[in-house]
């Protein structure tokens, strides 16, 4: 059951990602990315990360993708305004060939890790909101505060960048 779910979700994640980088229309590309994001959310659920599953759907599919789609519609990017990319697929092929040895190296490094028989957690309530919150507010308190300052900086920065210049 888990295996077939993993296969379906990973297939959709890969298809969404391939569609995202290869489709011509920006809008189709963004909608294809939604498929990929939702499949990755499902994979989080398979990995016992129930809170991250929700966060992925709310933050990525709910906020970031909607913001991208809104921006594409707001700037009114049509097919004829999109940049011409005549040698897109040859470049992709070259980059893919270059990346194969790198991926092989990382994969080999991971396969040297000690093998565990059943890939399942024994801890009760692993990955739910309570356990994550307890960890976050005890051992990870300082990074959490730094992240909140980062979000504030991003808020102010976006307002500064996107407003119109008053003078000139």
């Amino acid at each position: 059951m888990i295996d077939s779910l993993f296969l379906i979700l990973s297939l959709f994640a890969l298809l969404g990602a391939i569609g995202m980088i290869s489709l011509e229309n920006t809008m189709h590309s963004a909608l294809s990315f939604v498929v990929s994001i939702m499949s990755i959310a499902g994979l989080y659920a398979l990995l016992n990360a129930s809170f991250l599953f929700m966060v992925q759907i709310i933050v990525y599919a709910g906020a970031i993708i909607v913001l991208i789609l809104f921006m594409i519609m707001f700037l009114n990017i049509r097919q004829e305004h999109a940049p011409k990319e005549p040698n897109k697929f040859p470049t992709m092929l070259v980059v893919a060939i270059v990346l194969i040895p790198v991926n092989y190296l990382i994969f080999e490094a991971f396969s040297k890790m000690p093998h565990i028989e059943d890939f399942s957690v024994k801890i009760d309530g692993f990955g739910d909101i309570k356990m994550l919150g307890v960890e976050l507010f005890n051992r990870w308190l300082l990074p959490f505060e730094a992240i909140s300052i980062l979000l504030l900086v991003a808020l102010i920065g976006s307002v500064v960048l996107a407003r119109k210049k008053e003078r000139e």
Partner: protein
Amino acid sequence: MIEASFMSYIALALVLFSLGIIGLISRKNIFIIYMSLELMLNAINLMLVTLSKYFGSMDGQIIAMMVIAIAASEAVIFLSLIVAMYRLKKSVNIDDFDTLKQKGTL
């Protein structure tokens, strides 16, 4: 039959990350470059969550949540920069965004 083991998740994350790099290098549309960046962040998140399950510790999931927060703030800054550049150049082609190379138009 492929089983949902540790290595299959790692392989999936590696392939997704590579697809992100491929999109980042080969496309010229700034939106698709941005989505490729997001795909790479997602692949790294998937790897972190997998390692979190492998080691039975919550640290990977907490780092993944911080990566999501950073991705959200990155989205805000990136999209407002796209709007600012679009106002200036009326284009989403990254080849037009070379104002730092020439004498200032900004």
